[in-house]
């Protein structure tokens, strides 16, 4: 068999979101890889310029379903810095609490996805079962399972009660025990180790050179963590220990995330124990004074960067978002090339990519591409209806209004 180019995406069962990798294969080995991005471009940065600061919190929170709190925290922090607002300590602690819970749910999600990519569905089911614990907890604390809506300019929107604190601590004990079990499975199960160890290697030098971030970089032995290096929220008062590993492969990335889970449980206990009393928010002005600010937040997938410039009105002049996955993508071809096709899904999954974060950025009202798609979609729908009618099933009788396209 000669060289063939295999499309890996934009629609592929291994990718949870549309993104395209073209793989040049020699037999089962990947000789070269190219990344094509932009399938999820939503024009959020442009949209931010026509919405108020408050509305933008909810818009930016929806950059990503998994690290929504990281994005909204990063944004409100840059706005607070512009407005010169000091948030109450309790609010800072609560932000950190939700941030850590989000990290737990994201990392457990990753563990499950890693199992799925290597065909280990049972591991996937168990990890996601335990992810429900933290999802329920988040629903209890914030009112939603994702897109928590916890942040507002000047603090947080919901306070937590002592009973909720108890529930948090109880869940942490439960999760810690489960995580220890996963650590055992991931480091001792032969078939799993065989698929994780030694693949997708990214050396420390390459990681630094290509600007990798978060757990990917930490698995290559670089202790970089915004929570410690450039503390925000309550992290300046907390003792953040950065988990690193030197395997520099997919296995290392799994180990780092498991260690970070343990670290998050410890941090959450510390936060709940030291939760200061007081108000949860301060009044913020509608119009933000002119200026510029940049803020960094350690999202579950790595460093998240927001830059905001204001012009003195109630709407920002420019909001720039850099999600962690974009930083890691430059390194991905480096990791895929030379490996097996069978390893591509797990190597891609191991950077825990979030392509809707990466592409973020307009709601193009009646844009040409959208118009086009609608026509295609209607044509497809009509085709489907006609086909079923030939089979004696009349879809028209099942009342679906035409407007619901």
């Amino acid at each position: 068999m000669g060289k063939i180019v295999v499309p890996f995406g934009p629609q592929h069962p291994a990718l949870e979101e549309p993104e395209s990798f073209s793989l040049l294969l020699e037999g089962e080995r990947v000789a070269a890889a190219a990344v094509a991005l932009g399938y999820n471009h939503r024009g959020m940065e442009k949209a931010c310029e026509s919405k108020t600061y408050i509305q933008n919190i909810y818009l930016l929170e929806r950059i990503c379903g998994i690290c929504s709190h990281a994005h909204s925290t990063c944004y409100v922090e840059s706005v607070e810095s512009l407005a010169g607002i000091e948030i109450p300590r309790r609010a800072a602690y609560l932000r950190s609490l939700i941030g850590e819970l989000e990290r737990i749910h994201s990392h457990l999600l990753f563990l499950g996805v890693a199992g799925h990519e290597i065909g280990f569905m049972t591991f996937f089911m168990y990890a996601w079962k335990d992810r429900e614990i933290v999802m329920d907890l988040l629903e209890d604390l914030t009112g939603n399972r994702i897109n928590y809506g916890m942040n507002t300019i000047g603090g947080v929107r919901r306070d937590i009660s002592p009973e909720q604190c108890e529930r948090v601590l109880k869940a942490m004990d439960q999760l810690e025990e489960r995580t220890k079990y996963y650590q055992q499975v991931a480091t001792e199960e032969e078939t799993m180790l065989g698929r994780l160890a030694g693949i997708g290697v990214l050396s420390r030098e390459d990681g630094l050179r290509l600007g990798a971030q978060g757990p990917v970089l930490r698995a290559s032995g670089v202790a970089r963590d915004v929570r410690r290096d450039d503390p925000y929220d309550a992290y300046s008062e907390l003792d953040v220990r950065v988990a690193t590993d030197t395997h520099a492969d997919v296995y290392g990335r799994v180990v780092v995330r498991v260690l970070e889970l343990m670290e998050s449980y410890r941090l959450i206990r510390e936060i709940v124990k030291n939760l200061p009393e007081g108000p949860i928010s301060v009044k913020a002005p509608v119009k933000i004074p002119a200026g510029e600010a940049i803020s960094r937040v350690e999202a579950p997938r790595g460093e998240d960067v927001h830059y905001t410039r204001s012009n003195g009105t109630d709407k920002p002049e420019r909001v720039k978002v850099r999600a962690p996955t974009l930083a890691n993508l430059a390194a991905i071809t480096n990791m895929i090339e030379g490996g097996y096709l069978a390893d591509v899904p797990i190597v891609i999954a191991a950077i825990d990519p979030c392509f809707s974060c990466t592409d973020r950025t307009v709601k193009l009202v009646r844009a040409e591409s959208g118009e086009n798609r609608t026509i295609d979609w209607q044509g497809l729908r009509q085709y489907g209806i006609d086909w079923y009618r030939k089979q004696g099933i009349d879809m028209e009788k099942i009342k679906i209004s035409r407007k619901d396209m």
Partner: protein
Amino acid sequence: MKRRYVGKMFPYMMKMLVQKPDTIDYPHHHAHVAEHFRGALKFEQDKCIGCKLCTRVCPANAISIEKVPDEEKKYKAIVFMDKCIFCGQCVDSCPKKALHNSEDFELASMSRDKLRREI
């Protein structure tokens, strides 16, 4: 190097086999939501003073307040459930607490028209 096993999860699997399943048979069993869940919006007509602050803060233009014709100081809210992103900012912003989130999350509908609710 640690010891390696094939079938490490085996004991736990056997435990799960005899345990009650964690998932539920959803449409037949009700899904549980938390106490302060942010679901579909509810509106209390007699509290509304028609300030329309909610329509101004809404990031998704999902709510509009209209005057009830022929009646003094009476307003109705029209919520576009298909646009609503359930952030609850209108609830926070309402000065008279006329809006609140309910625990209703089962909003699927065959028609977009049905998602436009006058409440």
